[in-house]
């Protein structure tokens, strides 16, 4: 199973409405969270090479359907949307766990983090609720029988870990490369239309937090431009004004 989060496209202007309590989604295009797309592509390889079946799932309202359709066009077999507006990681993780516990997944792939909330929490919470093994910052994954070998990016290097399935991973670039990402073709898009797609009503609501308002960083002060012939001044400013060297 691949968990996908529906996020504003990376070049989106981030603005808020309703007295800074809501994200302004007008003129924003939504995409599959980039880390999830790396994970989905890896899943498609499991399908192509090992005959895996792929479910793709998202917690969200109707506007999420487009990214699930895209995931189906890329190669997932079944789509699920849990029909609730995501409010916090715990709520999302709980809803996803409810679904996972009813199916017999060997592998759950989520992203290292979503680029909108940046929590990096959902997959770990699921793992702990369901007692799955969990590895995040995953840059390579091989599965043999019921054993997984995983490479994880750590500070200053890469470690190799192994564990038994079931496993949940947090995917990131490296698991597959940018150039491996698939743009859905016409055939895929047509096929996606006839793939099973289910909307799940689950009214469990367990949140631990609420977002009460948003703000934007202060506008930046003026830049000091220096001549390439005056690098001594730059060094002086870094030393005496900014005090960083």
């Amino acid at each position, binding site marked *: 199973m691949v968990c996908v989060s529906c996020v504003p496209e*990376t*070049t989106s202007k*981030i603005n*808020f409405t309703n007295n800074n309590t809501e994200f302004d989604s007008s003129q924003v295009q939504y995409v599959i969270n*980039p880390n999830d797309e790396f994970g989905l592509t890896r899943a498609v390889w499991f399908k192509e090479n090992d005959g895996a079946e792929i479910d793709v799932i998202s917690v969200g309202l109707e506007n999420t359907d487009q990214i699930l359709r895209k995931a189906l066009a890329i190669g997932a077999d079944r789509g699920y949307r849990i029909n609730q507006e995501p409010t916090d990681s715990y709520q999302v993780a709980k809803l996803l766990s409810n679904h996972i516990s009813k199916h017999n997944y060997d592998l759950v792939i989520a992203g290292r983090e979503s*680029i*909108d*909330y*940046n*929590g*990096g*929490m*959902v997959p*770990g*919470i699921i*793992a*702990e609720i369901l007692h799955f*093994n*969990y590895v*995040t*910052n995953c*840059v390579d994954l091989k599965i043999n029988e019921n054993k997984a070998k995983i490479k994880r*990016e*750590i*500070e*200053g*290097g*890469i*470690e*190799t*870990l*192994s*564990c*038994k399935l079931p496993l949940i991973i947090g995917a990131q*670039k490296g698991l597959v*490369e940018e*150039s491996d990402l698939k743009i859905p073709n016409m055939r895929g898009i047509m096929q996606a239309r006839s793939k099973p797609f289910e909307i799940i009503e689950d009214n469990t609501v367990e949140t*631990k*937090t609420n*977002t*009460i308002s*948003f*703000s*934007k*960083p202060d506008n*930046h002060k003026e*830049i*000091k*431009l*220096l001549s*390439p012939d005056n*690098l001594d001044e*730059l*060094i002086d*400013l*870094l*030393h005496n004004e*900014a005090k*960083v*060297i």
Partner: protein
Amino acid sequence: MSILVYIESNENEIKKSSFELLSYAKELSKKLSLEVIALVINCSNILTLQEFGPDKILSINQTKLNLFNAQNYAELISNVSKSTGAKNIIISDSVNCKYLASLLSVKINAAFISNVVSIPSSISPFIVKRSTFSNKAFCDIKINSDIKILSISKNSFGVNKNKSEPIIENIENDFIESGIIFESVELSSGSVRIEDADIVVSAGRGMKGPENWNIIEDLAKTLNAATACSKPVSDLGWRPHSEHVGQTGKPVSTNLYIAIGISGAIQHLAGVSSSKVKVVINTDPEAPFFKVADYGIVGDAFDVVPKLNEKLKVFQAENN
């Protein structure tokens, strides 16, 4: 009741980022009237912590904990938070801390808030600011659960000295072994890590090719800085993926970020903008990075960078 700070280490050395966590906890402890407990795993130099005000240091030495394992570490912190009655747990925003915190939050039924950038603006209800949308915005979060885990964004609070005379206790811990087995590790040799560096020297496609990175590395060496790069540079294979910074790479929140031949695309800026001081070197005065930087030089990297390096060496020789 107490505030528990998990002190991270690297090869049995306490990480510098821990001092900021302790400073944060100390400030929070004034608001909550609670004591600050530091939890240290397999470190010898624990006395360095007393400069930053902990009331108590819990020190654990166990070979089983030599290697980081998120499950084992989460279990240990869970045990300690239960035995100390800690309702507020302060951790760093490193990849390991976020990894273990998601597990820990379920074990102790806590809310976990990552990327926290300031002291709570209110205690009851508990409201804290975190960065979101890849640093393009902040949000105020109200925490409804009694137990809270806060991961603090690096360099967002700062370090305050506050000498104390902590009680030091050695503790033991029993846990069920995690199902994740360590096989091996490959460390990238010698270089300073982006995550720990005070200065990051970053370069982009303006460098034309990997063969030109020697001037970047020389500058980084002089400054004792980590090297980083833009996404296309790592996609092209000029530099390793581990150097890719930005919205889809590593976040950088350092004291000084020097961007060389990087245009400043929104996805790049999102990941690096929380760095304190930004310097841009670019031939194109219209490059978007100039709009967000503190100091800029419109000029050719191949000319400016080696000159800057030489001048820095002279400066360092004079100032040391």
